[in-house]
């Protein structure tokens, strides 16, 4: 029996068509995955299934049939019945999809009372049952807890509990695990699969992660630029992809290994027993009552041309460590750049050294000033470190840096919004490279990018390392990318190093249980 049938759906915002002619169906009890990169229209398609798009995105055409009802022409009352009653929805961001001012018990109860006239003890029992189903058995006596008291994974479970509270026939999950740590991701996906079996409901999974598709979906719909390019059974599509785009998606997982390090490579960055702690202040005089230890005694040494991958889940202190090495976060312990101790140097003494060590941030949208052109952004560092340089010489250096990261030189006068995410990350890399640094902190440089672009950026970074003998501190939570980039890997948890070793050995034979769990979550499909 078909639960959801989408026929020839088109959605336009103003004059821009973001979804065109999409058709697919979801049968009872099966999992259908919609995959695509950002901007492919997969989320808009999912939101349209419950008519959750804002009124301005009103130019919908086609037909959506949910449990026999025409969604696009349903009355508001009928629509409310469908939402939550027939189809539940789980969103990407567990931080913002729960109301921070309401207790979790109340939010789950609301989902129930909207569709069933329950109250008092019966409602309480129903809320507890929903939470137990979502794997939150320990939370049943904490119904008054607020979202901020819960971890990301727990919040996502509350969302799932609320979405499934009325036994819907279909659950739409829009990137349900993207914002979560890898080990939590695996748990949530397992939960969804289990609930699907128990409640014999259908699951429409929107994701960009092909690993998830392969492991959890029955059928897959591949979208690109608002249109479906291919759909079929997962096994068939993965075994013999028909469309070139699908083939490209499947082939673009970051592969390969970094170039070997020269045996006589000099030491670029050495740190011993680095500690970072943030004071917790309380009371009227804001006295320091305690410290949060973000990094607790980490030592490392990096040679020219070497990449040290730092992995760990959110809150493990890996980004703070990177910033501490750059002296952008106050820390204790010794830090030496090219044999020179930099801990305790004044700002003015640090300034010339800033050109020797640079950073590339995660979010290519946030790390470029929207009001400056690409040329201005890249040239800013030159203006600081080589103030005597003529404007023509500077322009030449900027053009050379752009060319090195694979962007045409005529892009200097364009503004960040005119570039794609991958191109912006290239500009951020060019900004760091133009100063000819020796040491580069790469803080999740590929996490915000689409898979196909990730592979290109990894390729670019490896090429630049081989050419200039750069030392990278590569911070990431994505073990597949780290394995393709790093010579050595350091696993961090709660500010401490859990395990450290050669990349090959560490991924193949993890010693610590925590590392093993990480590896399992990341490489299960292999």
């Amino acid at each position, binding site marked *: 029996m078909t639960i959801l049938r989408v026929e020839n759906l088109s959605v336009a915002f*103003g004059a821009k068509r973001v979804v065109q002619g999409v058709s697919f169906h979801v049968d009872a009890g099966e999992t259908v995955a919609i995959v695509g990169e950002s901007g492919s229209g997969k989320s808009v398609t999912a939101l349209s299934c419950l008519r959750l798009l804002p009124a*301005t995105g009103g130019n919908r055409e086609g037909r959506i049939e949910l449990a026999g009802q025409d969604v696009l022409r349903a009355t508001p009352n009928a629509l409310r019945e469908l939402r939550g009653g027939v189809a539940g929805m789980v969103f990407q961001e567990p931080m913002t999809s729960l109301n921070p001012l309401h207790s979790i018990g109340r939010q789950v109860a609301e989902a129930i009372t909207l569709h069933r006239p329950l109250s008092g003890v019966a409602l309480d029992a129903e809320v507890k049952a929903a939470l137990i189903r979502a794997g939150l058995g320990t939370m049943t006596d904490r119904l008054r807890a607020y979202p901020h008291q819960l971890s990301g994974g727990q919040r996502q479970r509350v969302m799932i509990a609320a979405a499934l509270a009325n036994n819907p026939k279909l659950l739409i999950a829009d990137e349900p695990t993207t914002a979560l740590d890898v080990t939590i991701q695996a748990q949530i996906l397992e939960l969804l699969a289990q609930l699907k079996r128990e409640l014999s409901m259908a699951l429409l999974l929107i994701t960009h992660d092909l690993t998830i598709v392969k492991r959890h979906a029955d059928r897959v719909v591949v979208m690109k630029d608002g249109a479906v390019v291919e759909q079929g059974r997962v096994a068939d599509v993965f075994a013999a992809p028909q469309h070139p785009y699908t083939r490209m998606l499947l082939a673009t997982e970051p592969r390969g290994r970094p170039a070997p390090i020269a045996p006589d490579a000099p030491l670029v960055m050495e740190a011993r027993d680095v500690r970072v702690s943030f004071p917790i202040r309380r009371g009227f005089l804001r006295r320091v009552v305690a410290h949060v230890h973000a990094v607790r005694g980490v030592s490392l040494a990096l040679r020219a041309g070497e990449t040290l991958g730092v992995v760990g889940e959110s809150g493990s202190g890996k980004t703070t460590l990177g910033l501490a090495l*750059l002296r*952008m976060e106050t820390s204790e312990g010794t830090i030496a750049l090219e044999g020179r101790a930099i801990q305790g140097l004044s700002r003015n003494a*640090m*300034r*010339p050294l*800033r*050109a020797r*060590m*640079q*950073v590339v*941030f*995660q*979010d290519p949208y*946030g*790390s*470029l*000033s*929207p*009001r*400056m052109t690409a040329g201005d*952004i890249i040239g*800013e*560092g030159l203006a*600081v*470190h080589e103030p005597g340089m003529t404007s023509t010489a500077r322009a030449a250096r900027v053009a050379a840096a752009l060319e090195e990261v694979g962007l045409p030189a005529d892009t200097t*006068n364009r*503004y960040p*919004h*005119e570039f794609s995410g991958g191109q912006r990350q290239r500009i*951020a890399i060019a*900004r760091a490279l133009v*100063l000819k640094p020796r040491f580069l902190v790469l803080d999740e440089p590929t996490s915000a990018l689409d898979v196909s672009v990730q592979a290109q950026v990894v390729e670019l970074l490896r090429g630049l390392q081989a050419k200039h003998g750069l030392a990278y501190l590569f911070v990431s939570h994505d073990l597949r990318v780290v394995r393709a980039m790093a010579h050595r890997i350091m696993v961090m948890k709660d500010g401490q190093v859990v395990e450290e070793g050669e990349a090959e050995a560490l991924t193949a034979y993890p010693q610590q249980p925590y590392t093993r769990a990480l590896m399992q979550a990341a490489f299960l499909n292999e």
Partner: protein
Amino acid sequence: MTLSPITIRRLANFRANRRGWWSMWIFAALFVLTLFAELIANDRPLVARVDGNWFFPVVADYAESDILPDGLPTDADWQDPELERAIAERGFAIWPPIRYRYDSVVRNLGRPSPAPPSARNWLGTDDQARDVAARVIYGFRISVLFGFTLTIIASCIGIAAGAIQGYYGGTIDLLFQRFIEIWSGMPQLYMLIILASIIAPGFWTLLLFMLLFSWMALTGVVRAEFLRGRNLDYVRAARALGVSDRAIMFRHILPNAMVATLTFLPFTLSGSVTVLASLDFLGFGLPPGSPSLGELLNQGKNNLRAPWLAFTGFVVLGTMLTLLIFIGEAVRDAFDPRKLPGGAR
């Protein structure tokens, strides 16, 4: 000069708000016109030609003896009927459309002042027999100039203070915040009354005094923008490049804070105009005799038999403030990131 795409979109948004767009042009036209108030309303001719000599009384002072051979060696009174007749006989004079300055007393009124509107005094005269139309033109100019000067200087101080607080945070922020809280608790009006009893307030002393308090309006928003901005990735990237604090504040964070500032600007401006008018109304404002809209309103209150006084004051002040608010709304629309030009409201 190439405009950044954000600026282009904002201009389009601004223009899309037709009411604000036209308000801006009307206000600009009125302001430019009143900037040349001396050429519109004056008690001396623009140009006079007597016995083959050219005179430009608007820009230069002449003694009566310069004009007429039998004149007295005192400053020429161009309103003097004798002089007027002599000029008519021996040459000509071109007068501005209104033959009075804000402080010239209308002679031969033929009735007690305040006199109702007539062909000679378009908006009537006030209780000291001064032409209301001329006073309104000069009053508009001084109000707007006062407002502009106050707003611009106050904004500069406010932005600088907010920027320092937000960017450095910590103890500096804490001390500054407490200072502002105490300072904003000062009773402005009473202090002004005390001040007025010590010195006679003029344009600049009033401005300086208002400045002491009005800079605080913007610090809050600017501080918030800088607090947010200092942790943006591109600001951190600039810090990693070794860019100095001042350059980071100006180049990277200030453009964000300018949005809040510019959105506030027309409203601050209308606020400043209102403050000046209310001080004048209470008699603690500009020195006696100055053309002032507040003083006109006060006269309207004291001469209820002469409704043209209160009516004129109300219409002029009301129009000016309405135009400014409309402009402010358009500016606010222009900076609204969710608004697309020509998009649905």
